[in-house]
């Protein structure tokens, strides 16, 4: 990964009347990086993305994409970005190929480049199998793939995806994550918004946690979890005598929570066999022993005092 900055945002402010949608947002995205914007609905993710795609104006601050100013060079910015919004923005009565042709015309692609891009999308996103079918005849997953393919028909260096997997079942979601990760192999810089902590964790090189129009933390998912997510723990549920189990494990920092024992340790995976052996050797049978690592949800709770899914 090079260190070239592709997206640079400084002190971005956006108001909708009395409501402050963005409150001094600053961040940068490096070339070939996948940066995730994680936050609940109303955090300002979509507004931020739409501003970067020149779909909305902002009140204060500066932003550039590939060094092009959002206001002065908006056409160059728009040429450099492939924007895939939440909704499937395809024309139902047209075939996928016709939707491609329309999108290609918006970027004035010549017929040679258009053919190349159709081939690429067929291979990369697997749209070849339904290229000549009308959009209204496609399944949800096919539509989303076609939507992404159409969004990057002009081969943009920057791809902006606004909650691309909302409403997907887990299998399709995972399939889509792989596609997005593959974009890195084609040297694309990706900015993705989500309120799914697993998606952000799985997919992104770095995650910016947004709340009420602000970025409250930005780093690699592991670092965020390590520094802000709290301690790792081992959760144990015994068949009987939980008090005895607690006294057996008194050398560790442990506590009873509901009917489970929670043992807080730095390296839970190394301790698990030791704990298990100790309990068995003293005749304490266990129903469950599991390692619990902090998630980005924990990070969000720590930072905001609320859960990600709370509206």
């Amino acid at each position: 990964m090079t260190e070239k900055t592709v997206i640079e945002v400084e002190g971005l402010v956006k108001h909708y009347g009395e409501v402050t949608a963005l409150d001094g947002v600053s961040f940068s995205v490096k070339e070939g990086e996948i940066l995730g914007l994680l936050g609940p609905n109303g955090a300002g993710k979509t507004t931020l993305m739409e501003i970067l795609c020149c779909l909305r104006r902002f009140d204060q601050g500066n932003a550039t994409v590939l060094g092009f100013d959002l206001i002065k060079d908006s056409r160059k910015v728009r040429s450099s970005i492939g924007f895939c919004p939440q909704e499937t923005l395809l024309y139902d009565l047209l075939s996928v190929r016709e939707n491609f042709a329309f999108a290609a015309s918006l970027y004035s692609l010549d017929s040679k480049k258009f053919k190349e891009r159709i081939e690429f999308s067929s291979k990369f996103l697997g749209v070849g199998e339904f290229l000549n079918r009308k959009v209204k005849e496609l399944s949800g997953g096919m539509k989303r793939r076609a939507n992404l393919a159409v969004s990057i028909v002009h081969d943009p260096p920057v791809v902006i995806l606004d909650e691309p997997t909302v409403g997907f079942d887990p299998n399709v979601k995972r399939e889509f994550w792989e596609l997005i990760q593959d974009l890195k192999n084609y040297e694309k810089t990706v900015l993705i918004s989500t309120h799914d902590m697993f998606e952000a964790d799985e997919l992104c090189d770095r995650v910016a946690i947004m709340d009420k129009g602000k970025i409250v933390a930005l780093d690699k998912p592991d670092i965020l979890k390590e520094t802000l997510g709290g301690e790792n723990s081992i959760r144990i549920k015994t068949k009987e005598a939980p008090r005895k189990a607690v006294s057996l494990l008194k050398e560790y920092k442990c506590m009873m929570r509901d009917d489970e024992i929670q043992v807080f340790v730095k390296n839970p995976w190394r301790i698990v066999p030791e704990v298990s052996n100790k309990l068995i050797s003293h005749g304490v049978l266990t129903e469950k022993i599991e390692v619990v690592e902090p998630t980005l949800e924990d990070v969000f709770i720590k930072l905001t005092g609320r859960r990600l899914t709370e509206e």
Partner: protein
Amino acid sequence: MNPIIGIAVKDIKTFFREKETVFWTIAFPVIILLLFTAIFGREVPFTANIGIVDSDNMPLTSNIISAFNNTEIFNVEIFNNKTEALKALNATDVRAVITLPQNFSLNLTTGKNTYALLAIDKTDPEVTHTVANTIKTLFSEFYKEIGNYTEPISVIEETSLMREEIGYREHIVPGMLCYPFLFSSMVAATGAIVYEKHKGTLKKIRASPVRPLHVLFGKTLAALFQTAISILIIAVLAVLVLTPKVNWNVPLMIPIMFLGSMNGIAVGLLISCIGRSPQAASSAATTIGVVLQFFIGMYFPQEFLPTYIQQIGNVIPMTYAVQAIRSIMLQNAVLNDILQPIATLVISAIILYVMGILLYKRWVEKE
């Protein structure tokens, strides 16, 4: 591909894939055309009493009076003086009074200019129109036979001659050719922006480097194409089913059709930019179209309509398109005859279209 063409092609394809829309776009004008022709197209025998004051009293003027009598349209009453004749006119005993002045025959036969005075009861516009034009036609026939002759001075404003065998089907065909200005151009343009806005696809277009102006041009091109198809279907149907005796001066009609369409499209774009939902915009466009069709003289020549409707019609640009098309088709008008309606259409199209562009740009910038 050029984005303007791309947008137009996409819109045209989408239009033709919506089978119900295509059906009604074609079916509605066809139904109206056939319905109105069936209701108003019957040949109703028409007669009117007219008075003639023959101050010349020569064989030639006697021939003219005989000619009027032989038309089977007029029952001619001879008056000895004009005062008496005008009294009969005021008493509605006669619809019109023609006064042939002294030396009328001498002037005509010696190649000098002459005139005939026409006083007419304008109470009923339809009768006025028919009587005035028939009288003018008869004088015109004399003009052709005798030579140097000046049009009679008429109390009515209209100076052009009507064709002899003009009927309702001849009137409605030019009107119906203008129908797509309202129900193809305006309605198509109305759906253009508001539909994309509602579906969210406009976001995708706006996220591309396409200029707002190009978006509107693409939409306009698609609406023009739809209008052209509608006009073509109506024209073919008119020729095959109604066989009107009209002048098909296509090269002169095309620019008028274009300007009429552009006016319709511009109004549609304005509604589209204001419309909050496709349903609201579509209802507004349909209502405006239904109302306008009566004001612009689509089904009846404007002079047949009540004065206040004519006055409202005069401020609607599409009225001038209907007038111009009707003049070309019914009165063999040439370019010089329709310069004024053309100028009106050009100016209004520019003003309305620029307003549409500004409104669209303002809406885009407001985001």
